[in-house]
């Protein structure tokens, strides 16, 4: 990968929540890179640390209790973790923006949507009049398929899918180079999900924005992403292209996930789920966090955190089983 291509590089970031119940190990030395314009799918189950990563990039982790323990987040060469609050604010909503999960609650209910879009424009535009900025907000609304004359309406006057469009308009208003979409369609019905995802994909390629698409839905990933990262217990355990992950999954967890989904295309009488439950993030097991649920686990797995094995240019996995695979080749 050429350095110039690299947009975002997350290096060994660790984030803890220090709560009364103990320290929640949300992210454990996670590393990940993204290229300009690409769409990376980030997949994991509840508690895997997906949202923490998204908020961590924008430094929106509530503190207390959240603490960024270590690591670097390089965005276009700058370490976001070293910026002061003012510099960080200049980036938020401008070069990195974010779409949140629940469109029903992500808009301020007492502010007209036009104003909510204008607010982000206002925060990042200098030398423009109010009228110009409002016009820009209206343009954005049109772009996501909402008539501009609805800009004076309040969120409750819109349906869920429309609200998510407004949120997308907010996110894209300043032409960000990176869009973080945290489960943007989970709360929507499938037909609406299809509409919204199509629109995001279209706009993103038009604006050449890179997208970190966080989801638990492998189907959404398969239809929308270039590459996939699978997260488990605060770490990326497998990373690869769509073909790598869906056709040649290496990590037992990835395999388990794929086996858990009832298939539309094949007829399977019984699903083959992963046994057990996600580990308690305040009390992670030693070594590979997945080991207690893994049918292939051996003593080696509990001794230390497995290393990352590179299977191909694009495919990496964090599992001792891969070692044999690599050696085999």
């Amino acid at each position, binding site marked *: 990968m050429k350095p110039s291509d690299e947009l975002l590089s997350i290096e060994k970031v660790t984030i803890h929540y220090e709560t*009364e119940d103990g320290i929640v190990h949300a992210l454990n030395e996670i590393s990940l890179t993204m290229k300009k314009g690409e769409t990376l799918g980030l997949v994991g189950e509840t508690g895997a640390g997906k949202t923490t990563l998204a908020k961590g990039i924008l430094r929106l982790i*509530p503190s*207390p*209790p959240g603490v960024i323990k270590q690591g670097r987040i390089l965005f276009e060469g700058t370490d976001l973790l070293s910026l002061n609050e003012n510099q960080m604010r200049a980036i938020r909503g401008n070069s990195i923006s974010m779409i949140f999960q629940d469109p029903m609650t992500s808009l301020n209910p007492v502010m007209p949507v036009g104003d909510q879009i204008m607010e982000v424009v206002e925060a990042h535009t200098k030398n423009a009049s109010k009228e110009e900025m409002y016009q820009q907000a209206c343009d954005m609304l049109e772009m996501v398929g909402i008539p501009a004359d609805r800009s004076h309406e309040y969120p409750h006057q819109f349906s869920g899918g429309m609200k998510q469009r407004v949120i997308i308009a907010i996110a894209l208003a300043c032409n960000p180079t990176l869009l973080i979409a945290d489960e943007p369609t989970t709360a929507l019905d499938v037909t609406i999900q299809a509409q919204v995802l199509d629109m995001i994909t279209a706009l993103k390629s038009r604006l050449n924005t890179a997208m970190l698409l966080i989801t638990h839905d492998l189907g959404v990933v398969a239809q929308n992403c270039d590459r996939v990262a699978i997260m488990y217990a605060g770490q990326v355990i497998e990373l690869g292209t769509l073909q790598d992950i869906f056709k040649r999954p290496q990590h037992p967890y990835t395999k388990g996930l794929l086996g858990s989904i009832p298939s539309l295309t094949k007829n399977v009488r019984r699903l083959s789920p992963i046994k057990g439950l996600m580990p308690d993030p305040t009390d992670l097991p030693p070594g590979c966090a997945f080991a207690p649920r893994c049918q292939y686990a051996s003593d080696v797995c509990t001794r230390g955190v497995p290393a990352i094995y590179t299977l191909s240019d694009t495919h990496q996995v964090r599992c001792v089983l891969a070692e044999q695979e690599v050696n085999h080749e």
Partner: protein
Amino acid sequence: MKLPVVKKQRTLATETWRRFKKNKLALTGMIVLSSLVLIALSTIVIDLATDNAVYNNYVIKQNLRMRLQGPSKDHIFGLDEFGRDIFMRMIWAVRYSLFMGTIAIALSTIAGGLLGAIAGYYGKVTDNAIMRFMDVLLAIPSMLLATAIVAALGTSLTNVLIAIAISYVPTFARTVRASVLTIKDQEFIEAARAMGASDSRIIFKYILPNSMAPLIVQATLGVAGAILSIAGLSFLGLGIQPPTPEWGSMLSSARAYIREGWHITVIPGLGIMITILALNVMGDGLRDALDPRLKN
């Protein structure tokens, strides 16, 4: 089949307590209140054991010639307008000040809670009838209602209690109704109905236990309000009757001497203040502990 022996898991109460005790302010409030309860109980025991001798010889014993004397070695809080020992009166007053408020609020919590639960659960006509009646009571300022009731029934401990209790009923009814309305539509209520549970079982086993949290908080704060209301009634001459020591009436009757000596109003005033502060911070602590959503 052998039944497994299991250890008791954390109940919601212990969970709440665990969260509650992290809040030092609320904990302090609780300690203050517990000590007050202890004091009250011990004075009751002393009275029973000594056949009121201590009460007669120290609490209501007057010494008019030494009235209004400031704090001294013999009387650490000084003497009141009748030359009675303020310290002893403060101690003996705890049971009236604290328990009267508590009993009054307990009564109105039960009455208001039930009314609110019934109104919220059955809705429609029942709800309308009960809540319009509550609106009527609410439209009369509570202090006024209490005053009118005491004026009507005559000033006695029980009547003050009843008056305060009645004047707080609508508040509790509203609180419980509001939380019943949110709980009523939850799936676990439907689950109970799907199993064939009766209305009373649903109200008592499902709805009321789950609406306890706001009720407990409201009751804690209500006790504080009730103590103040009793003091207010004393100010209007309708509170606890002499020579029974009660902070509100002590403060109220001492107010004529407010400039004679600082101790005479400040001490009962502080007593009330500390108790109410304690109730308030404890109430807030409970609210936070019972409602984990409020935590970041």
